[in-house]
């Protein structure tokens, strides 16, 4: 008899691809992991949007949270701030939807009109994670629209920061236009200059004059339009009595133009218009390369991104939605379950159980009594409470930390190119003057002028100006591919100079995603069945984690009297038995107890799931690699219950600090900087925001990079934590690449200077040398960085 091959496949949710242990939710023969996924599917299939599932398998995402309170979208003043455009019939709104991640998402968002006919059109922007929707606002309110998006699983994130539109786009476009003009001038000047290079017959000499004038007219817009920024920047830096790299560049550009103009007008030569346009073209490309943008990430977020747009205000016993900006001291506000307290406020009514993990990093929620002050940033995790605002939003404890103008720049960071240009310009000028003097003494003034200008032209540090941007932006894109998103090239240079690392604990070296639970106590099989049957009805992440940890394969039992009390737990009857699962007080414990989720069956507490933090799996390796080169500090808002474990990992126990308030963290960083250290802070939450900003390099760790992370210099994906030592190593190696390429470009300059001082630099020589050195530098830096990346195993 042949052995029967039995392939047991684990069933995966049709919507989100999550594994299913117990098949409960089925629709149209497709399995689902939870009610949320199933209802999204049903909504889509009802509206003939089934193709959503055909472009990608498992295009959906599990919805974690309960829908947010949206009543503020009824307030006209808020709506008017959110929308882009409005006329008699339609209005247009751009919403940030972080869930956009595949082609199915785009397809669905652009077919929203099929669900609701009042949506005229919708356009998704994948890179920016945005969708722009035009809709008939007489028939469909913005609130209804957002609710519709919420139902499809694409909940837009609407925050205070959306109310402030930025104009960065125009700046980007201006640079692109400048490059276009420079490229246009470069190409045409090159074409017009070719006859001159190849030599012209005597009868063709008449045309030389014409070519010269065309060249000059091409150089004019290049200098005035494209080269403007260099002149402005060098004037600004001279006013501050500093020499940045733009000074020799602007000098080179000006001299190139003046000499070309004189030669062409006098008819004595053909000028250097093509070199000039080429120089500007390459310089601008260097600038463009440097300006790396992550459309879907923001490094500038402040507390406004975390806070809701509006809050429910109580006026004479009536609830009314008010914009956060209008909130005044003395106002009574209503905070519901899972809502954020937006301003420091005094508790007036209700049972407050505030989760301050956002603010302090402390993971256990705190209960507050009437009359106590609740600081802004805390999240209510129980019933609705009433508060009286005691401080305006912008001056609350947490937000004032942000607005502090006292962020002291202990050390102004000077980039390598700025250090170089500090010496470069005086040396270049003195060579030019010496060269001119050499000929001037001999009375050959034509040569003196030629030598002086030629030195400034040849010495123009074009290749030097390009080596930093090209090297560092190559590093940026390697980081990017490895899950490390650095704000700009300057931050990479800063990273190379770091000597001290400060870690936050919760969420930084612990992994918030690891949700395996272990039960303290014993559960027999029947009890397991009871717990399973009860938890199945709840969408709370903890309930799901419990179901996952039970591995129970049987059938669920029928429940009666099921209730879920937000922030406390769930309760139900099965047959004669009463089951309650929730926090200690909820299940009836009054004495000293550990934080965790307790299970109580018929009045008997069976045990609990303790809150446990899981260290990131590679913490030990990362620390042992980093401690060779860096001083490692740990600064946590949590209690020191993990001190013993951490002392085994971190090299110096004296550098471990617990129970630190956000302001303490900020001060700690500042103290280190005052000791002359260059500090990098790694943190995750709002509580680290001040420290992240104060540090020379603030790195925010986020397990979901589309989530909001505080203002920082870099965002590190949680999965990339392992590679942290390699990132720092690559940054250091990149600086070495810059030094070498600087040497190469100096070599070119020296060769050129030799001819320049002799006063016989031909236009052809300049036109060849300039692009040649540029190409060498660009290819050298890119190849060298790629090589380093391969060596560091960041690229195959």
């Amino acid at each position, binding site marked *: 008899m042949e052995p029967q091959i039995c392939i047991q496949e684990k069933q995966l949710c049709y919507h989100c691809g999550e594994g299913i242990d117990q098949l409960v939710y089925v629709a149209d023969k497709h399995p689902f992991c939870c009610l949320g996924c199933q209802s999204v599917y049903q909504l889509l299939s009802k509206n*003939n949007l089934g193709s959503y599932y055909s472009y990608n398998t498992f295009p959906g995402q599990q919805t974690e949270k309960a829908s947010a309170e949206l009543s503020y979208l009824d307030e006209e003043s808020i709506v008017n701030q959110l929308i882009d455009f409005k006329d008699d019939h339609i209005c247009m709104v751009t919403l940030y939807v972080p869930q956009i991640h595949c082609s199915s998402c785009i397809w669905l968002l652009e077919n929203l009109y099929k669900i609701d006919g009042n949506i005229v059109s919708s356009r998704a922007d*994948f*890179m920016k994670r945005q969708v722009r929707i035009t809709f008939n606002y007489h028939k469909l309110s913005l609130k209804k629209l957002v609710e519709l998006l919420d139902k499809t699983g694409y909940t837009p994130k609407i925050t205070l920061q959306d109310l402030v539109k930025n104009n960065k786009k125009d700046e980007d476009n201006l640079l*692109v236009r400048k490059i276009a003009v420079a490229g*246009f001038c470069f190409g045409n000047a090159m074409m017009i200059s070719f006859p001159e290079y190849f030599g012209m017959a005597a009868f063709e000499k008449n045309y030389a004059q014409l070519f010269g004038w065309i060249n000059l007219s091409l150089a004019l817009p290049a200098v005035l339009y494209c080269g403007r920024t260099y002149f402005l920047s060098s004037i600004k830096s001279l006013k501050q009595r500093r020499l940045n790299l733009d000074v020799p560049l602007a000098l080179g550009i000006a001299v190139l133009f003046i000499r070309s103009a004189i030669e062409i007008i006098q008819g004595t030569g053909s000028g250097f218009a093509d070199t000039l346009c080429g120089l500007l073209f390459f310089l601008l490309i260097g600038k463009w390369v440097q300006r790396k943008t992550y459309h879907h990430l923001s490094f500038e977020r402040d507390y406004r991104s975390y806070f809701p747009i509006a809050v429910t205000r109580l006026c004479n016993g009536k609830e009314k939605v008010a914009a956060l900006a209008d909130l005044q001291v003395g106002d009574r506000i209503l905070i519901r379950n899972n809502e954020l307290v937006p301003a420091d406020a005094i508790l007036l009514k209700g049972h407050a159980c505030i989760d301050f993990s956002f603010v302090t990093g402390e993971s256990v929620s705190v209960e507050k009594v009437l009359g106590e002050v609740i600081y802004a940033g805390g999240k209510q995790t129980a019933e609705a409470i009433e508060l009286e605002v005691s401080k305006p939003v912008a001056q609350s404890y947490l937000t004032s930390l942000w607005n502090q103008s006292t962020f002291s720049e202990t050390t102004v960071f000077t980039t390598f190119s700025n250090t170089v240009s500090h010496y470069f310009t005086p040396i270049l000028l003195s060579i030019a003057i010496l060269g001119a003097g050499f000929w001037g003494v001999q009375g050959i003034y034509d040569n003196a002028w030629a030598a002086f200008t030629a030195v400034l032209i040849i010495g123009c540090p074009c290749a030097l100006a390009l080596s930093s941007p090209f090297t560092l932006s190559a590093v940026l894109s390697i980081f990017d591919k490895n899950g490390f998103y650095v704000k700009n090239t300057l931050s990479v240079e800063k990273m190379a100079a770091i000597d001290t690392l400060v870690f936050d604990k919760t969420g930084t070296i612990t992994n918030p995603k690891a949700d395996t639970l272990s039960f303290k106590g014993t559960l027999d099989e029947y009890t397991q069945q009871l717990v399973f049957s009860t938890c199945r009805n709840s969408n709370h992440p903890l309930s799901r984690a419990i179901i996952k940890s039970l591995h129970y394969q049987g059938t669920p039992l029928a429940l009666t009297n099921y209730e879920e009390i937000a922030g406390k737990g769930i309760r139900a009857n099965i047959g004669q038995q009463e089951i309650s699962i929730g926090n200690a007080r909820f299940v009836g414990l009054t004495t000293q107890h550990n934080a965790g989720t307790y299970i109580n069956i018929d009045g008997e507490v069976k045990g609990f799931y303790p809150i446990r933090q899981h260290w990131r799996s590679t913490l030990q390796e990362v620390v042992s690699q980093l401690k060779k080169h860096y001083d490692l500090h740990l600064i946590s808002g949590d209690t020191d219950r993990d001190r013993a474990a951490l002392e085994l990992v971190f090299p110096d126990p004296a550098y471990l600090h617990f129970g630190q308030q956000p302001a303490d963290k900020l001060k700690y960083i500042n103290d280190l900087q005052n000791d002359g250290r260059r500090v990098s802070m790694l943190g995750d939450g709002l509580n680290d925001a001040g420290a992240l900003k104060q540090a020379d390099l603030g790195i925010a760790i986020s397990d979901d990079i589309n989530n909001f992370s505080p203002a920082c210099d870099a965002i590190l994906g949680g999965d990339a934590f392992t590679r942290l030592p390699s990132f720092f190593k690559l940054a250091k190696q990149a600086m070495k690449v810059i030094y070498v390429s600087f040497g190469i470009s100096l070599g070119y300059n020296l060769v050129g200077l030799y001819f320049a001082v002799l006063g016989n630099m031909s236009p052809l020589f300049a036109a060849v040398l300039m692009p040649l050195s540029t190409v060498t530098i660009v290819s050298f830096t890119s190849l060298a960085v790629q090589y380093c990346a391969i060596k560091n195993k960041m690229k195959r």
Partner: protein
Amino acid sequence: MSAIYFLIGCSVIIAVLFLAAFFWANKSGQHDDTYTPAIRILFDDETNPHASEDTSELRANK
């Protein structure tokens, strides 16, 4: 050889036209999103199978 004036004039004018076209494209926002259109083009035109089924059912009922 005076044709060269004409030829250079033509070439520069054409180049200016292209530059102008680029400026127009940039201004009208064609470079704002360079990724999504590439995905959008791959979506099939909807030939709605369910809708046709529905109508055929209706016909059958009649």
